[in-house]
């Protein structure tokens, strides 16, 4: 796990060196989340088809108790519910990168990626202070809040 963080940290530093500031704007697509593959990957059914959507701006653990907690956190917010993806970009395999928002009566409008960072269950992508849709440092602020509250990744002891 430490290696994965290290690799992601390296990518983040590389991105910083490359002066990478992902873009703004976005095109909203609405649908129902039919599967939460991991904390940063869901399946959005938009009626005419489905997209695999990767939530941008975050680095999520792929395994371990915190990874499971993070996946469950996302599932509770969006699984089986109406949601919105704001397109950032599309991968060659047709999978999408974007922001994911709740859009249902229970949760109202919440930014899932931001909520994940604020919960301490994921980190913001390092070197990405100006993220897609987060150009005022929202992700950094959320992470500082999580650190201050010692939530999730920032708790003194991690679940085994």
């Amino acid at each position, binding site marked *: 796990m430490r290696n994965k963080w290290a690799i992601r940290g390296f990518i983040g530093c590389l991105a910083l060196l490359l002066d990478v500031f992902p873009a703004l704007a976005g095109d909203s697509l609405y649908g129902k989340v039919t599967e939460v593959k991991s904390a940063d990957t869901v399946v959005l059914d938009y009626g005419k088809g489905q997209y695999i959507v990767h939530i941008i701006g975050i680095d999520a653990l792929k395994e371990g108790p915190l990874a499971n907690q993070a996946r469950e956190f996302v599932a509770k917010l969006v699984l089986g519910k109406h949601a919105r993806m704001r397109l950032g970009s599309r*991968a060659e395999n047709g999978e999408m990168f974007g922001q994911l928002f709740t859009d249902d009566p229970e949760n109202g409008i919440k930014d899932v990626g931001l909520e994940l960072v604020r919960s301490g269950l994921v980190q913001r992508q390092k070197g990405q202070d100006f993220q897609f849709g987060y150009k005022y440092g929202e992700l950094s602020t959320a992470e500082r809040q999580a650190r201050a509250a010692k939530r999730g990744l920032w708790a003194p002891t991690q679940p085994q």
Partner: protein
Amino acid sequence: MTCKFHRFVFLQAAIFATMFSLGRPALHAQVAGEVDRNMSKMANYQNECAIIKNPTNKLQLFSLCNNATGGLFASRSVDGGLTWIYPDPSKTIANGINAALGPAACCDPTLAWDTFGNLFITYIDSGVSNIVALLSPDGGQTFATLAQFGPASVDQPTVTADSGEVWVVWNQSGQMVARGAAVTGLGTANVGAFGALQTIPGTSGCSFGDLAIAPNGAVVQACESPNSGVGPANILVNTKADGLGPNPFAAAVTATATNVGGFAPIPAQSRRTIDAEAGFAYDRNAASPHFGRLYLVYTDSPAVSSADTNIMVRFSDNDGATWSNPPIRVNDDATTRSQFLPRIASNRLSGNIAVCWHDARNSASNTTMQEFCTIATPTGATPTFMANALISDGTSDGNGSNPPVAGQADIQFGDYSGLTYFQGLAHPAWADDSNSTSDNPDGTSRYDAYTDRVTGGVAAHEGDPHLTTVNGVHYDFQGAGEFVVLRDYDGLQIQTRQSPIATTFNPGPDAHDELATCVSLNTAVAAQVGEHQVSYEPNLSGVPDPSGLQLRIDGSLSTVGPQGIDLGDGGRIVKSWAPGGLEIDFPDETVAFVTPGWWPSQSKWFINLDVFQTPALEGVLGVIPAGGWLPSLPDGTAMGPMPGPLHQRYIELYQKFADAWRVNDKTSLFDYAPGTSTETFTLRSWPLEKPPCVLPRVKPVEPATQAVAERACSQIRGKNRHSDCVFDVMVSGNPGFAHIYHFSQQIETDSTTTTVTDDEDPSQVGESVTFTATVTANAVAHKRAPSGTVQFTVDGSKVGEPIKLDAKGQAIWETSRLHAGKHLVAASYKPADDSEFLASTSAEDVHTVKRCPCEHGGERR
């Protein structure tokens, strides 16, 4: 005679040899841009630009773009897009720092500017949960928050304002919604409360659209459904016929199907993808034959997932209820590469429409883009677009927002580009990472916001007479009489008088139509310039007068002074560089150069007419439709393909076509001596189809040999102009033709325009005011600014010493010593000794100096 002639040729050759050098810019006809302007010059990237022009002041523009970091990139121009300044030193508004610049923005700016002077702005706020509407009453200097719509799940706002209404449409939870308000004047106090949210029927899953207000007040919105997938999709249109009235938007109408879906990847934008990007423009000119026509631009392809995306236009004459079919393909390339992110705009004064887009036609890998534009006139039953013109100076790739790093969001060029079109100039705006302007702080790694000034280009009416139409077709027109050579529906009109010439020799057929008729000469010019009628013709008495042509304005003899003659609304007349020549500036930005020459042996004046940056597309110099051989007739009817038999060509050209464009007593702009009229100068049987080219009581002119003509024309470049010169000298025996060809040539390649702007108006007594003179080359191919000096004048008197132009062709004069009152500030450009450019003088900038406003209602006593 022989000695004099040879001396003339020798002197002429010597003059030419010293005046011309290698590497002159190529001549450009058709739609053309100037040098690109980098609006942002800002670190990191700016893209998805909106741009708008003040419909009551052609010098004022405002642009707003997405910015990589906080806020939206904002810039404005007060000199017609030549230079760009900023409402805030940060070059941003809505940046979360200064509340006076609007609530913090995420993205997606759109703009509208109404005839009251209200500049409306909408964007998505930083929380992506509100649509923010701002109003600037002063052209983008200050801003007030007009409304915020939300919080809700919102995206893709569009604002439009006209006919006393402002409307905002956006996507909310997947559904298109709208709100409108009445506007009665300038400023927020004159904008009524926005009405209730209107849910637009049938638009669930529909987005990426546009919004337009008809001249009759109807509101029309377009969106693409579905707004996902690679295609196919439909462009849906809903109309609210009663504007701000109580009725809802009507049911959606399918304007067109398209194979370009909401998220369609193409090689040039593989990561962000494109959509059909539907856009609207209304013909708002009441004099246009298609007043109230609604144009729709969109992107389509032969098949779903095809990279051969094309720019298409349909139109509706009933506010979107039904649409023309088949669509018109706008891009004229023969490739299967991508055209994408189109934008359409109409010139409300003429009804002309401009379309600009990103184009990968010159990219072998189909992955890089250049900005292209075209313009069409509304006259015909369907619009006929001029040849596509490459506008951008550089080539941009899709990596200017973000390098293609796996897992990163990257919106590349973004989802839209910008375009505004008013009073003769179209201004596209796009994200550009070519660094063609050499002032992008990120070099070629990030987009800056670029724009250009796009016009109709060059037309010419030279010699006896050889015409170059505004879309670049060269043909001879030897009719005798007075003709409309150019006109537009915003009032511009130029007419010429052609007089028959008796000759004994014809050098050969016209390459365009192979006709070898007798010839004529252009001997007088008249024009409608704003509210004024201008004529420049030989002495009305009919007595040959070598002292010069007579200028009349509204029938009165006039003389052009050093500062020219101001005709109002930007119209003016100044002396040109050529002896006896005039430059006529029209309010719509058209510039016409009239260059006369005297033919001693015939005691006649002859005239070259060269027209630049004109949006006028009709007349004998008008656009020739695709597949045609002549410009369309006054009613827009196309002349069709060239007939096979030469005699039939002659009949069509000199009877049907020529007679259609003749002026009559009501339409003539010329001045006449008592007892004469346009009929006096009309000879319908001319030109005779074949020699002998005789006229009653006129001795035919003696021709010159080809060798003599070639010598006289040795410095006239360009295939057409050189052969025209040789033809004219041969047929007339008059080497003086070469002289005015030379003047026309240099005017076309090296003439300049000088403008003066002030940094604030009015100013206060004792306050420092900065006046900027900008000198630009009229030929689009010049890529470097003119060099030399400008002399500023105030109220006709020189102030200070001449000031050297900088590398941008600008000179600044600052003063705090102007007295209270109105002043006329102008600048005259003097080229550097080693410069090929020609001198020019600006129009007068009216600057008002007020006394201190702090006492007695604004006037110190």
